[in-house]
């Protein structure tokens, strides 16, 4: 046993800004009880959540996000945790107005995830989260381009969130249509009434930042899954005026990508200039994959 303890853990990493991590993980927390799978590799940590075979979300925490990332495993260890508990627990480490350094370690002697604050010797916070063996999942969220050219657009994250919120009252499902001429994206809901929101791509508008589409496509998605992709978007994303990238792949698979900053709060960071420039590496990538309701194309 003592020999085992001396062995290096699969992963030992240290992070400066816990709140950033809490924000990134909260973005994929669309209901109270959710199981998440964590996958470790030499490149970093990926957290995956899934629902009803229709929606999957991944949070990519690249090793550059951490100030220390020691990886010693062979293969890619995977384990399951309750996302809610993991986030609530991380939250306890986040002290407002205080940058807190935490250490995350896996596995503990009983295959737990161990968390520890390492700021001060005389006051420390520790946590242990029980993990479980993940199901050998056969998730099918392979995103493949629909044709030779990608079908994709980038919209201001705040505008996307607002548009999806506005589409709530007609309910049920949302039809997303991309049209090359005139270049535009249409979100349309039909139910108790109709509501249509058009994003027009034109040079002077900064709403639709990028647009690429060579033929008309149209797919329907369940409203609740689409909403899950934006409902818990951290406020830092809208504050930093970031964009979200949406792509439609083969069979209508929708990919929604957000970027969440995990760098230290700028007040305590000398490298951040007044324009809010932050090291690009300290960004968590978040991806949602939504399967269409039925193909109409």
């Amino acid at each position: 046993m003592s020999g085992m303890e001396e062995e290096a853990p699969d992963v030992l990493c240290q992070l400066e800004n816990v709140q950033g991590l809490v924000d990134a993980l909260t973005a994929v927390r669309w209901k109270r009880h959710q199981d998440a799978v964590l996958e470790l590799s030499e490149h970093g940590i990926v957290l995956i959540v899934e629902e009803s075979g229709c929606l999957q979300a991944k949070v990519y925490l690249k090793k550059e996000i951490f100030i220390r990332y020691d990886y010693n495993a062979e293969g890619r260890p995977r384990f399951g945790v309750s996302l809610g508990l993991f986030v609530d627990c991380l939250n306890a480490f986040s002290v407002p107005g205080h940058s807190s350094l935490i250490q995350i370690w896996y596995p503990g002697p009983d295959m737990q995830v161990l968390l520890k604050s390492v700021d001060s010797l005389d006051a420390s916070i520790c946590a242990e989260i029980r993990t479980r063996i993940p199901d050998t999942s056969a998730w099918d969220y392979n995103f493949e381009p629909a044709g030779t050219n990608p079908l994709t657009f980038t919209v201001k994250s705040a505008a996307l969130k607002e548009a999806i919120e506005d589409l709530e009252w007609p309910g049920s499902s949302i039809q997303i249509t991309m049209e090359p001429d005139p270049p535009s994206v249409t979100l349309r809901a039909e139910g108790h009434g109709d509501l249509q929101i058009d994003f027009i791509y034109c040079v002077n508008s900064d709403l639709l930042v990028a647009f690429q589409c060579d033929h008309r496509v149209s797919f329907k998605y369940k409203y609740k899954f689409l909403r899950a992709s934006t409902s818990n978007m951290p406020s830092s994303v809208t504050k930093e005026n970031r964009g979200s990238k949406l792509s439609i792949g083969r069979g209508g698979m929708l990919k929604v990508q957000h970027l969440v900053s995990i760098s230290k709060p700028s007040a305590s960071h000398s490298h951040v200039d007044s324009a809010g420039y932050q090291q690009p590496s300290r960004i968590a990538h978040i991806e949602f994959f939504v399967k269409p309701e039925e193909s109409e194309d």
Partner: protein
Amino acid sequence: MKFKAFLTENGVNLLEKRFIPSLEKTAKTCHLYFTKTHTLFLHNLLNGDGIQSIAQFTKQVLFDDYRISSQNDDRIAFTIDLSLLLRALRSSVAICNEYSSSAVPNRLQIKLVKKLPSNCSVPTPFLTFETRGFKSAVIQDIPISKPLSRAQVVELQSALDMAQDVPPTLIQVPDLNQLLNLVDRMKHVGDAVNVSISKYGDLTVQVSTTLISLGAEFRKLLVIGDQANAPSEDQNLSAQTRSSRSILRGDAQSVQVSVKHFAKSLQYHLAKPDCAFYGIAPQGSCLTMIFQFFVPGSRETDKSISLHCRLPVLDPGTG
């Protein structure tokens, strides 16, 4: 039964800005207990569950021209709604400030009265606030319970006497705000928190369930009462091991209390105590928190104000 007094400026400040807002967080109502020498706000002294809290002021801190008489050794106690008391106090202060430019200094009088409400045939008791302005007087009546009977007052006094024992080891708690922040988040993780206090000056606070354990450890805190030097071989152990070893050695005690109670007790920082001490009563019967107030501008304990609370224990834990 008569009670009549004028609130001092300091008294108004203490109650309005500090004590009542924090006491209100523990429970909406409390016993207000006047004696010849003291005024006390008491929570849950007559019923066993919930946080017991005792805030005590000498009459000179809160009042001048203090007149009390009752057939029960000049003691009067009743139940009062703290939010109503705070509202009355706040509006009286606002009225006083509005007229403060007038030549006559405003004084805030409180007294116990019995009045016949319009829709009622039995006179009911009130605590009345009276603010006299230059041309007008504003009177606010706060409904209170029927004053406690002689037997009930005796029971309250003996419960109060019983709640005065000080734990053998007390440790000074660091930043209450930081602890509050942590405990607020612990509420999401579990319902019960284990608190352990050692003679070495260690405080550990831990929530454990089958899926998760989350805890904080504070070391090298100031100890009052029974203390000991931490064994050097324990220095490099984990917080949990260190805590269980010190319990085995008889140098530490641990109790389990409700996370909700613990979070509520941290709200006493609203009363702006100058320091806070935690201790565990013998046999782990309760977790005691003692708040200390200094004479303004000094580091001397202000003996005219005292505040302490006792958290009921869920599991007697380890002695």
